């Protein structure tokens, strides 16, 4: 079977792009990725998006963006898996290229959060939950994560302040990323005093939603070797699912799909956790960062938060996470987030991460979740030794 590699990356900054439509936003990232790969055409386009139908009244993004990018006629389709849409789109590109049916694929994750404001946006975000049995009760994705966090604190005897390290680390890294939505540092003591969103989750715990687009060009590894100096190999790729509703989980504090997808992706890549130099995880809320670290195996159950407390997640720690700010500081552009994670890891492995660089990074892992892990997608990326 073919191996798939990344030969081009592009991204916009994450912020409120009032002056930019969803098609333009996608195009800016695509243009940068095509330039980076030094090509102008691909065989297929996979769009990761979560909410355009609701917030921009625009479905049918595959054809729209293919046309707008000057590639009218190619195979193009949108992949939707909640806030894991971006990495699910990458997964489709990997399947297509590895199958041999598609030579070169383009992945773009794009989300336009600010075409509407206020409570309709929160309602749209809540559509990734179980509509009949969660959202109908007024639950939101942050509220469901809050239910998880409260129970986590109760079962494991963890205080709210113990989660601060995740947000502090994300902001410290985001401060070095000019594309990040928030480039300010956060003091740990401010964490527990922040205004509530859904208790115990506060404004300094939950990641901010923003507009953004990120893109990847993926092709066969043998071809990639001839095209660019440093292709980034997609060595592992796995998507797993769990119940959408938290209340349907027999073991709510275990992100089963996150664990399954990570184990599969690591096995495909023939690497162990000890080989992983950085981990871009889904820190939509701090408790999800802790649970992701536990599900993947970087921490025992109930101890994921300790990695933040002990300084293990910083750029020079045992397992650096959120190296460009993560969802918390770079911003969370919904269905684009998974593609941002892959772009950021490619920059790390190419040694082009500038002030965010993890020294000598050779193996990177990304994990993108929808909601509290109803969908979990894990990718492992490597570079060949030079």
């Amino acid at each position: 079977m073919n191996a798939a590699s990344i030969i081009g990356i592009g991204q916009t900054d994450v912020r409120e792009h009032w002056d930019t439509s969803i098609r333009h936003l996608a195009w800016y990232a695509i243009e940068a990725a095509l330039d980076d790969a030094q090509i102008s055409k691909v065989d297929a386009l996979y769009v990761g998006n979560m909410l355009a139908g609701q917030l921009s009244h625009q479905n049918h993004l595959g054809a729209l963006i293919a046309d707008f990018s000057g590639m009218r006629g190619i195979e193009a389709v949108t992949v939707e898996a909640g806030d894991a849409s971006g990495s699910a789109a990458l997964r489709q590109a990997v399947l297509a290229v590895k199958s041999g049916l598609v030579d070169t694929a383009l992945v773009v994750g794009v989300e336009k959060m600010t075409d509407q404001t206020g409570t309709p946006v929160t309602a749209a975000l809540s559509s990734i939950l179980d509509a009949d049995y969660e959202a109908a009760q007024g639950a939101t994705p942050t509220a469901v994560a809050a239910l998880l966090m409260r129970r986590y604190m109760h079962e494991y005897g963890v205080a709210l302040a113990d989660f601060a390290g995740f947000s502090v680390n994300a902001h410290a890294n985001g401060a070095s990323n000019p594309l990040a939505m928030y480039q300010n540092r956060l003091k740990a003591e401010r964490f527990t005093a922040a205004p509530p969103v859904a208790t115990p989750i506060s404004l300094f715990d939950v990641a901010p939603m923003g507009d953004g687009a990120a893109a990847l060009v993926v092709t066969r590894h043998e071809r990639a070797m001839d095209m660019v100096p440093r292709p980034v190999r997609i060595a592992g790729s796995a998507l797993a699912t769990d119940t959408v509703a938290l209340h349907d989980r027999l073991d709510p504090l275990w992100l089963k799909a996150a664990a399954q997808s990570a184990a599969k992706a690591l096995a495909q890549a023939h690497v162990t956790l000890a080989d992983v130099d950085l981990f871009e995880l889904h820190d939509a809320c701090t408790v999800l960062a802790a649970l992701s670290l536990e599900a993947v195996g970087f921490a025992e159950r109930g101890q994921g938060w300790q990695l933040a407390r002990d300084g293990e997640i910083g750029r020079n720690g045992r397992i650096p996470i959120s190296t460009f700010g993560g969802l918390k500081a770079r911003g969370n552009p919904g269905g684009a987030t998974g593609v941002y994670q892959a772009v950021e890891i490619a920059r790390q492995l190419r040694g082009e991460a500038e002030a965010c660089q993890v020294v000598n990074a050779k193996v990177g892992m990304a994990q993108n979740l929808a909601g509290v892990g109803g969908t979990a997608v894990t990718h492992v990326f490597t570079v060949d030794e030079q």
Partner: protein
Amino acid sequence: MEVSRHWRLKEQRYSLVGETCEHCGVKLFPPRDVCLACEAPAKELYTFTGLGEVYSYTTVYDAPAGFEHQAPYTVALVKLEEGPLVTAQLTDVDKDTIQIGMPVEMVTRKLYTEGDEGTIVYGYKFRPSVSATA
């Protein structure tokens, strides 16, 4: 108007009708026809007592459209005495007194209104158990 969507959920919203797995005995709410625990068919209807305890809870300040006038409100995971967890609002309670493990019981309340002229959606919420607080 989303009349049919609410109408077809009436047994669940008003009476907590779920299912029981004929194979392993696990009780299921909401009904899902395939057992969560053993994946055998589970289509025998079962009406829950509506008694349970708070498993976890959150007070929501950032509310979605349709719920903005209720904020802040408290959403809980309630562990029913038959086993399953239910996501539901807590009502008739001071939010500062809520604790994990608190006994609660199901009541019928207005969930939300679909605008000024739309459907008024009723369904289950949970309040502190009257027998436990008496």
